[in-house]
């Protein structure tokens, strides 16, 4: 089934879950993505790297997904790293979203060059 946004997940040996989202993240596509991330994080030990390089559109429901993930992980002493390349159109969404996007740890490339 073709979907608005798709999620690929890889669990690295160091306990960090790498997720890569492709497509458009909006109110219709976030619930399914969130459910899959939650399930994947139940067994994660160290943290989550979420690669948004393939996301072409992001609205506030997508931003909210990121905040929720961050809250969830922080409570369990884990880290969320969000990958958004420099110049990606969705940086605009993070820029204009009012409640502090500065709370998110955003990097321009995956930490260890892993595709996500």
């Amino acid at each position, binding site marked *: *089934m*073709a979907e608005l946004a798709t999620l690929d997940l890889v669990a690295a040996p160091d306990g960090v879950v790498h997720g890569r989202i492709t497509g458009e993240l909006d*109110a*219709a596509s976030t619930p399914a993505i969130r459910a899959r991330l939650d399930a994947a994080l139940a067994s994660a030990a160290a943290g989550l790297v979420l690669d948004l390089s393939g996301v072409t559109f992001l*609205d*506030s429901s997508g931003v909210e997904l990121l905040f929720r993930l961050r809250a969830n992980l922080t409570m369990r002493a884990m880290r969320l790293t969000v990958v958004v390349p420099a110049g990606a*159109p969705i940086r605009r969404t993070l820029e204009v979203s*009012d*409640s502090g996007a500065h709370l998110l740890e955003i990097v321009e490339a995956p930490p260890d060059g892993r595709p996500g």
Partner: protein
Amino acid sequence: MGRRMREHDWSACSIGDPRSWPQSLRTATSMCLNSRFPMLIWWGPELVKIYNDSYAPILRDKHPRALGSPGREVWPEIWDVIGPMLDAVMHEGQATWSQDQLLLMTRAGFEEETYFTFSYSPIIDESGGIGGVFCAVTETTPSVLGARRLSVLNEVADRAAHHDDPTAVARAAIAALEDDRADVPFALLYEQVDGTAQLVAAAGISDASRQALAAIRPQDALGLDAVLDEESLPPTRVPVPRDVELVDAGDLGPLAGAVVMGLDVGATQQPWRLVLGVPSRVAYDEDLQRFHELACRAVSAALTHAIALQDERRRGAALAELDRAKTDFFTNISHEFRTPLTLLLAPLEDELARRPPEASEGLQIAHRNAMRLLRLVDALLDFSRAEGGRVVAEPRPTDLAALTAQVASSFDSAVADAGLRFDVDLDGLTRPVQVDPELWERILLNLLSNALKHTFAGGIAVRASESDHGAVIAVTDTGIGIGDEHRDRIFDRFYRVPGAPSRTHEGSGIGLALVAELARVQGGTARVEPGPGGVGTTFVVELPFAASGEALPAEPSPLAAAHVEEIRRWIPEPAADDARPQTGGHRILVVDDNADMRDYLRRLLAADADVTTAVDGEDALARLREQPGRFELVVTDVMMPRLDGLGLLTAIRGDAELAGIPVLVLSARAGSEAAVDALDLGADDYVVKPFTATELRARVRSALELARARAVETELQREHALRMEDLYVREHRVAEALQRSLLPERLPAEPHLAVAGRYVAAEDVAVVGGDWYDAVILNDGSLVLTIGDVAGHGLSAAAVMAQLRSATRGYALRGDDPATMLQALNGLVATIDGSPMVTCQVARIDAERRRLEIASAGHPPAVLVEADGVPRMVAGAGPPLGVAAAATWHSQEEELGDDAVLAFYTDGLIERREESLAVGLERLTAAVARLRDRPAEELADGMLEVMRPDEGYSDDVAVLVTALGPVDAAMLSVDLPAHPRSLAMLRRVLRRWLRANDIDGRAAYDIVLALDETASNAMEHAYGAADGTVTVEARRDGPHLRFAVDDRGRWRAQRGDHRGRGLGMMRLLMDEVEVETGEEGTRVLLSRRVTTDGGDG
């Protein structure tokens, strides 16, 4: 032959003129000539040949020259064999009999391997000596070759059966062909890999040849280009390939060439090619050609089987891996769940104890469900423990009788409610037993739950006694009992007695395995025996006595309560299915013995059907007979207790009242016999497990549509009997209605993207049916259009068409590109009875990026007209579906300009008597070009109007038109259903409109984001309102773009973080944001100043 004898010039012959022949020769000749069996006479010292009509064909080119000629001159090539035989008869008078004698004859221009059965007997002449030899003969070449070839074919299958790796199977099968070098001088098997053909197996050639032929690339000029052909390949004769050097050629003689054939190993595999040598000493006649084809088929079959096996093994390995991962996951998550659950239960229990019961209803529900959660988590833990074999026991001296009594007592009321006796007698056990109390509790809980699950009448008993070694606890029930054949396996993990009646099919299948494991780690044993008098079952657990010491106190854990809570869910039995609310959809009967599967199927189909379930064939039959005509479709499993799926199918088809119900069979494995049997027994379709939800729904829809069509046909037959006179009119109407019922009622539409479809039935009733079209918009915004034509007409064509249409939708939703869809459809067509031929065209249009992908299976080209008004024909070329299993298709890609119009049609539109297709096509393209500015609906009508022959369409016609744009840059208005799913469409429409206004890049992103937020917000308000629509309007006002978003709910800007964030964003993205709240609803006005170069103004 008599005439020929008379006319023959005997003057040159050593035996002289027939009038001078001795009486003995005349008598023999007359006998020979009058026989219809092939006979000949060898006469005189030169063995001159005289033969009859029946013998002449054996001589081929040697006839009639052979008549009256000396034997040695007629048959120099075989004289070394028959010469001595004839000599022996002539000199010793000894008659001979030769059976299937090999003779290498040259009688048709080439040296040929032949076989004969013949007898030689002496003819006594007037002198009393031997004057000649009488011979009766039959040619046995065909039967000898036939037997030899048959044995090779068997050998191929036999030897392949000893291997299961596809490559090994291929090698064994090809090696088997070496048994018959005379028919297959050499064999080469190639698999196409990335544009080259790799030699997988070879027979009959030298090692050097093998090396030279190991890989065939294009332009290798080895004479084997045919093996690179990607299309399906009928047997093709080619010259002897270069580099073929035979080994052990013996008396094979030279090669006459080679033949290349395509193997049929399933549509998804790479193409395989078989090259067989063509011998020169065996006629390359129909028999040899058929043999080569059969050899190819035997190799294909062996390979197909091996590949299917390999796939199955891979799946098995993947499943095992998944299983391990699952176990780890379960272990982790169960531990994580237990702590918070315990923290939840304790305060709940405190609170419950403090409050009066009437004031704590809510808390009780919370408590009950927390307990249930605990029990489920516990089951997960049990599961992973048993799986990982890591149960650790801490045995200590325990008063087992007391603990058992306590645990058992928590079952008292549940057993009573189930209408069973509960008999607990533990007096026989007094000594302390060495156990881990918690583990014992688990053993007992599992045994009691199990007994309760499978016992419907009578009772359950728990008894304790002492043996020489330890305590013996027996849990006996009067339930269904366990057959001998299952007793050995009952303690295996996941083992379930097939078809055992049960109160529930829930459960992990882990319980009894866990019992055995838990008994083992405590130094005990568990076994199962038939119950007293052969009724029911007794589970016996033996545990060692404690060596010494007092029993330590042991309290039962909350686990017992949780277990009983669980059991309460299925006592009394859940309400019957029929009590479910009726949704007014199709009535489907689902038959499966597995409760989980039943539930799954019910959930899957419940969206548009009333689903009733039955637990096996007999149950299903009872429900069907209770109300014949109630169910529109039966979906049944194959393997079931009592009456299985095939039995049910036979019963349905044999019952006049039920015979018309379509039956869809779920079969367990690909290519299983059961599926084939089911189709033979009259199943309408079968679905292989595991299946996807999309696939099953599509198949069910097809089956229902087929049923509807069938009902219409039955109606037709009834009418036929009633009123013959206006039958023609009626038939036409019914057939047309049937066809229409299978076409989509509504086609998708978006602003700037219109789709229109038309179907016109042929004037002649006999040719109605088989054309179809469909259009669907995917979530990613692309539009998939399909049009097709099933060869043949009437009900069967319509049925095929329905199936193809459903399947096409499934493939489209899966995200297949057009070529892949055709590939998959071809595979589907191959499974349809009679493999009908189908032409079909699939197009996928990305309206936003203006891209078209199109693939065609033998279908006439689509007509594309863009803004310049010049018509073009577009078509990906490829063979029709159903012609060859190994055929492949390619998608052609096109950029679409603005205002593109695409017209698809079936051949009935352009076919006309006494006119070539080219002329029709020309008229059509001109018509589409002329009408391109009309709305899609009018364009479709216009095409039919212009193309219509005076006498009306003689074949069915389907037309499908799609028009992109034009986009009105000045304004835009779009109504969106109040659901987040419509946001994607809004963004597409907006982007298209912005592009028409030359707004791109960041400004476009900002605007799209702001409108997405506003609409998303509005949807939350409008949702649930009567109208349920959000309207977005846009308008260009000089340098300003102005937008309005209307809903019929109330705007609440301040509620919640998320909502506020949305509004804040809008203000940053747009120059002005204004919210107007009125009686009717809320209107949000937004504007932004832009420059035409795409930047901000």
